[in-house]
């Protein structure tokens, strides 16, 4: 056994190869995106026969991994927490049917939220679906839990969820690394229609079997000293803490800082609930604080809550991340009721926080990169339809909100369906309203295809702009099916976005490089004409330009200051309507200048400068 410095996600990937996993599928999403690439890296390093797949979406990923598991192999599916919403259907059903091999669902939570549309707690999904769940507190523990979860999954023939939160996924730690384990298992699908194709009558039987399994698993959890254990216990006392996930780690460090040792019961498997061990702990203390992210899964399952402090009595905030600052600020006053604590500094007392009140550092909002083609697309859309409605989607281009070219963002693929709904509502009252929906290439393939089919089928009339930067950019450059590149870099078969759109019966389909602003505006106007023609219909504009990070466009700079115009009068329209971060206003000169550390010389700002009107930069 050796030590390696691993990101939590890489530790989970390592856990999969150390436990003989045969098939791993995933759809990228922060904070889960680095797990599958870690599996790919280890399989290449160690020359292992592991099938890896970036799937089209999470439901697909789930069912592909499950199908492989039906042959008796060990498989895992990886996604972020809201991805599990997309895969909820197979999750619920597979809990009943069970699994013949080992089957792990790794669903990464995002308390904060840092990069998600909700703070939902995957552990609730585990309860809802009746599937056991592991809640790791560190990269090391996440890796160890992969082995335990596979054993449990095979012993009870049930899917098992591992729920790492962002501070496990994106933590790094010196981790004990073992040799990979090779499990030889020839694929064998054993036919059993009563189970794999169970009708409602058998589903009732399966449900009863599932409940019996969960009882046994709860007993197993109650007796597992690795997963659920107490520290600092010394007879009966006044105050105890129950903690799960990374909150446990924060609490340990806070107590070490204060030099205090309050008893803590660490819960690694919050469902099925290890009730006996929790009741025993509760019996020892007059008051027990329950600290867990993101919701109250442990707290809700405690029957007698009379001595409990948690979210329900307002001790713990009911939204947001439980950072060390938040926990310190709320624990220290409670601790002070039971012990003396030397001088402490809460967040409010932080001397620099006070000093900075008069010198607020500049807010760096997340914005599209310099040279990003999405910025050009949004500029053209706004210019063509200043009174348009702009439903958008999940991806970097959500940041088009800065240009006021994004009106709605709901979930993956919603841009098209929301637009369809908007259209039918306006159309019902015979009002012509331009609607321009924007969706990225990966998101389009993820769930845009059935949405587009619905729009075509119901004869909706609006414009979809597919913002195609040839990669899944926001989550860290995962290939899409349109590139035909597979998760391990080998070649698959191409799923052409163009052919898919044409295949769904779209009669107005145009491709454009959004760096050419005038051309894009012209096409948008044509599309709107087509929308309104009697024999018209849906219009799709395929805006194609590679992501500047993926194509490393920023490495190909000349370095000479890029001049928008020689005649800049300081109107700053380029800054207010286009907003490229490389542009800044020089007060002394009353001119807009270019920051050459950021500019990639895409030249789009030149096209929108009023001084350059009539000049052709694309000829």
């Amino acid at each position, binding site marked *: 056994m050796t030590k390696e410095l691993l990101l939590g996600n890489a530790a989970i990937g390592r856990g999969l190869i150390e436990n003989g996993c045969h098939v791993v599928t995933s759809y990228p999403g922060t904070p889960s995106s680095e797990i599958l690439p870690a599996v790919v890296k280890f399989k290449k390093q160690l020359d292992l026969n592991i099938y890896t797949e970036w799937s089209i979406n999470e439901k697909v990923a789930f069912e592909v991994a499950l199908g492989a598991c039906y042959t008796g192999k060990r498989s895992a599916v990886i996604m972020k927490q809201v991805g599990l919403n997309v895969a909820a259907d197979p999750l619920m059903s597979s809990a009943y049917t069970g699994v013949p091999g080992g089957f792990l669902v790794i669903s990464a939570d995002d308390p904060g939220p840092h990069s998600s549309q909700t703070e939902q707690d995957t552990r609730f999904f585990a309860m809802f679906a009746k599937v056991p769940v592991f809640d790791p507190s560190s990269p090391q523990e996440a890796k160890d839990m992969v082995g335990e979860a596979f054993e449990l999954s095979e012993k009870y023939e049930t899917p098992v969820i591992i729920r790492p939160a962002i501070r496990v996924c994106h933590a790094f730690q010196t981790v004990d690394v073992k040799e990979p384990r090779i499990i030889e298992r020839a694929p064998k699908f054993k036919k059993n229609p009563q189970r794999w194709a169970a009708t409602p009558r058998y589903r009732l039987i399966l449900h009863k079997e599932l409940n019996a399994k969960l009882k046994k698993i709860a007993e197993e959890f109650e007796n597992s000293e690795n997963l659920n254990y107490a520290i600092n216990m010394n007879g009966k006392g006044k105050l105890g803490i129950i903690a799960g996930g990374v909150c446990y780690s924060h609490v340990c460090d806070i107590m070490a800082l204060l030099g205090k040792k309050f008893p803590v019961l660490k819960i690694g498997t919050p469902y099925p609930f290890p009730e006996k061990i929790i009741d025993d702990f509760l019996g020892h203390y007059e008051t027990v604080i329950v600290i867990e992210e993101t919701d109250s899964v442990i707290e809700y399952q405690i029957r007698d809550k009379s001595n409990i402090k948690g979210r329900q009595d307002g001790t713990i905030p009911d939204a947001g991340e439980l950072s060390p600052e938040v926990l310190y600020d709320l624990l220290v006053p409670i601790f002070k009721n039971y012990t003396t604590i030397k001088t402490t500094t809460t967040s409010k007392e932080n001397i620099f926080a006070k000093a900075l009140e008069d010198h607020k550092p500049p807010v760096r909002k997340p914005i599209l990169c310099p040279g990003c083609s999405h910025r050009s697309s949004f500029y053209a859309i706004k210019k063509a339809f200043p009174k348009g409605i702009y439903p958008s989607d999940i991806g970097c281009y959500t940041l088009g909100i800065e240009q006021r070219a994004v009106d709605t963002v709901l979930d993956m693929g919603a841009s098209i369906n929301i637009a369809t709904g908007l259209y039918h509502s306006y159309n019902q009252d015979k009002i012509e309203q331009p609607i321009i929906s924007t969706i990225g290439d990966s998101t389009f393939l993820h769930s845009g295809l059935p949405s587009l089919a619905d729009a075509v089928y119901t004869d909706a009339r609006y414009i979809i702009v597919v913002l195609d930067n040839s990669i899944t950019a*926001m989550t860290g450059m995962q290939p899409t099916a349109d590139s035909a590149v597979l998760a391990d870099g080998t070649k698959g078969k191409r799923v052409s976005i163009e052919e898919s759109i044409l295949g769904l019966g779209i009669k107005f389909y145009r491709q454009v490089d959004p760096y050419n602003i005038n051309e894009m505006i012209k096409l948008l106007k044509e599309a709107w004409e087509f929308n309104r023609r009697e024999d018209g219909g849906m219009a799709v504009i395929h805006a194609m330009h590679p992501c500047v990070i993926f194509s490393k466009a920023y490495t190909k700079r000349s370095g000479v200051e890029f001049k928008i115009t020689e005649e800049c009068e300081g109107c700053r329209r380029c800054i207010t309507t286009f907003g490229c971060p490389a542009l800044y206003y020089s007060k002394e000169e009353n001119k807009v200048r270019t920051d050459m550390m950021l500019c990639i010389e895409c030249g789009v700002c030149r096209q929108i400068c009023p001084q350059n009107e009539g000049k052709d930069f694309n000829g």
Partner: protein
Amino acid sequence: MAKNGGNHQIIMAGVGGQGILFSTKIVSTAAMMKGYDVIGSETHGMSQRGGSVISHLKIGDFKSPLVRNGDADILFTFEQSELTRNLPFLEKGGQILLNANDKFSLPDSIKETITSQAITIHTIDANKEALKLKSPLIANLVVLGFCSSLNIIPITGDEFKDAIRAICPEKFLDLNIRAFEAGYGTE
């Protein structure tokens, strides 16, 4: 150096594209190769070129990957404009490693607070040194070299270089070592 029982809590701050994650990896790897336990946390997602990037690094006996505000003993600032934002991380008596040019100045009230907290600022114009090596992206290594010369982390210059050799791609190794040495020789 025996302070905090040999434990260190470090914040590395800057903007996207400055190699914050790589710098964190070098210090973590060097500490690990010396037998210390290391835990920390990276910023991922929504951190595009030019956005704020921060990493937390704890060397020694820790469980949580995050440094609490007020607990860091060392703050690396690779971008001068990111300094004030991250000052609340520092504990009394902490140290700042700052990449800044000679024009950089802080508001008086902030300067006073820094002094009242017995915090030391070590400044280096790493961008200038990096430009001398014709590679503006290598300023982070200059800062690390500078840090090593100050003896505030229990890792020697040679141990740092071993860590760089262990994780740096062959193609950039020579440049990285030269940048590190440039920082080491500057004060």
